[in-house]
């Protein structure tokens, strides 16, 4: 199965480190024994052994440099692949991102940090493919098995709550929203999720109230994704039968994001996409 979450989580575990310490200790013991033996065999043997040991030490230093260099190169390659995935996700080239992630996570990663980062991208790609149950599995795994900085953990929890809403796990989503609210009161992402919950559960007045109260934060924190908030506000106004406001907000939403993209993100917007006109994007060559 392509992007099989269970398989990828297992296969990407970094290999345990080799016990080089024991090998080094054994080698050191062998050197001591050989040195004592050479000494007992006379001055010529002692001198020869001394030269061999010198070369051996030099060999170990060179070998260590080669191994360290090779490990650093492999680590750099993995990092470059991760950066490529990040760019593909940003550019919304989901198929390529999914393929690269499948390849990357199908074998043990060089470091746990790279693996966790790749799994975060995997959750985004799965959500894009509307495989929300799989996305939740990855997010739960990450939150349970790794320590993230507060901003990353908050972002993951937001993604999980949004995925829960998409999957109609309303009870779980409500609990997740409560947890997020205790962590941060000024999160624009949380405001957007609460608007979506209100739209889904048939509380459009609350969604509009949230939109009006939290728009400045959403604008500052979400950037272009504030289009989602305008779109959900439009849907709410439509549910409240305030059609001129719905049309106004839908036009603003589509000024910032293409209607098809908004409908893909929230299937609930299909009806208003058909009902209200979208903003017209200028043409490259001339006036529209």
């Amino acid at each position: 199965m392509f992007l099989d979450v269970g398989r990828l989580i297992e296969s990407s575990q970094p290999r345990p480190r080799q016990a080089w310490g024991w090998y080094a200790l054994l080698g050191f013991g062998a050197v001591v024994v050989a040195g004592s033996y050479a000494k007992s065999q006379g001055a010529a043997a002692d001198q020869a052994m001394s030269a061999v040991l010198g070369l051996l030490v030099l060999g170990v230093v060179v070998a260590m440099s080669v191994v360290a260099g090779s490990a650093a190169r492999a680590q750099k390659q993995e990092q470059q692949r991760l950066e490529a995935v990040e760019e593909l996700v940003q550019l919304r080239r989901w198929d390529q991102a999914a393929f690269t992630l499948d390849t990357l996570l199908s074998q043990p990663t060089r470091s746990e940090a790279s693996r966790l980062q790749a799994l975060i991208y995997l959750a985004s790609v799965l959500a894009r493919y509307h495989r929300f149950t799989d996305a939740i599995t990855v997010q739960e795994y990450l939150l349970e098995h790794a320590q993230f900085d507060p901003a990353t953990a908050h972002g993951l929890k937001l993604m999980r709550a949004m995925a829960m809403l998409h999957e109609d796990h309303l009870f779980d989503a409500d609990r997740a929203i409560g947890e997020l609210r205790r962590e941060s009161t000024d999160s624009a992402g949380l405001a957007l999720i609460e608007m979506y919950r209100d739209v889904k559960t048939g509380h459009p007045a609350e969604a509009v109230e949230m939109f009006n109260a939290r728009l400045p934060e959403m604008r500052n924190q979400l950037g272009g994704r504030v289009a989602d908030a305008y779109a959900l506000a439009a849907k709410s106004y439509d549910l409240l039968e305030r059609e001129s406001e719905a049309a106004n907000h839908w036009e603003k939403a589509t000024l910032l994001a293409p209607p098809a993209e908004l409908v893909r993100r929230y299937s609930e917007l299909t009806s208003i996409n058909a009902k209200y006109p979208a903003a017209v994007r200028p043409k490259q060559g001339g006036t529209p």
Partner: protein
Amino acid sequence: MSSVLRIGLGIAALAVLSLHFFPVGKVVSPTLLLMGLGLVWMTLWARTVKGSRLAAESSNLIASGDLDQAEEQVGLSLRSFSMSKSIKSMSMLNLALIRIAQKRWPDAAILCREVLSPSGGVTENLSKSSRLLLADSLLEMGDLRGTYDALAGLYSHRLTLGEALNLLRVQTDYLVRIEAWGQAVQGIETKVQLVELMPPANSARTQALLALAARRAGRADWANWLIRRVELLADVNEIAKSRPELWELWRKAPEAPAAPPTPGAEAAGDAPDSVV
């Protein structure tokens, strides 16, 4: 310094090995000397790794906005010994980033020039980052010739998406300053798609600059469309404060800027009309 040290250690190792073939090798144990050299090498390498860790930590602190702590870490990294020039260059670039955040543009420019100097031993990645930061600083200082030179050096490199976005931001700003309106709006559709990937504040400001360029280039359709987007994305007063020429888009005098669009008014459908 670090190259000299590495070459010196290599020569010393060979010299110690050759002791086996000379009478002095019977007085001083070459193996012990070699082990001593190995210990010195490992100690220096451990300090280099520590410096690298400090540089990486300061990058994270800058990203999280903790500039004071980041500056402290950068100071430690710059003062510590390192066998790798690129670690020192990375720390200097981090310090340049901090200076830019503090709006100390001349200091940032000096640091970037130091990294780019032939003695900097800089890698391609660091070279690209320092050129971008240098162009940004020089532009803020009003040195357009210097900005052009810094930007010109970037076109021969393959850029990552993040670097391409930074280049687009600085380049658009530069083209607007030299009033190259046609060039600024060239490929505007692709430019807008890229600008959408920038962080919110940079995205809004660059779209405002593109709107100005579009208006001056006679592309009222793009100008109107971009102005309306900027109004939805940011406080136009804040944007125009940093680039007074942008007041033209809203036809407000810089001395007496009108109140920004309020969220409540927007929500009620009363967004300010763009005067084009």
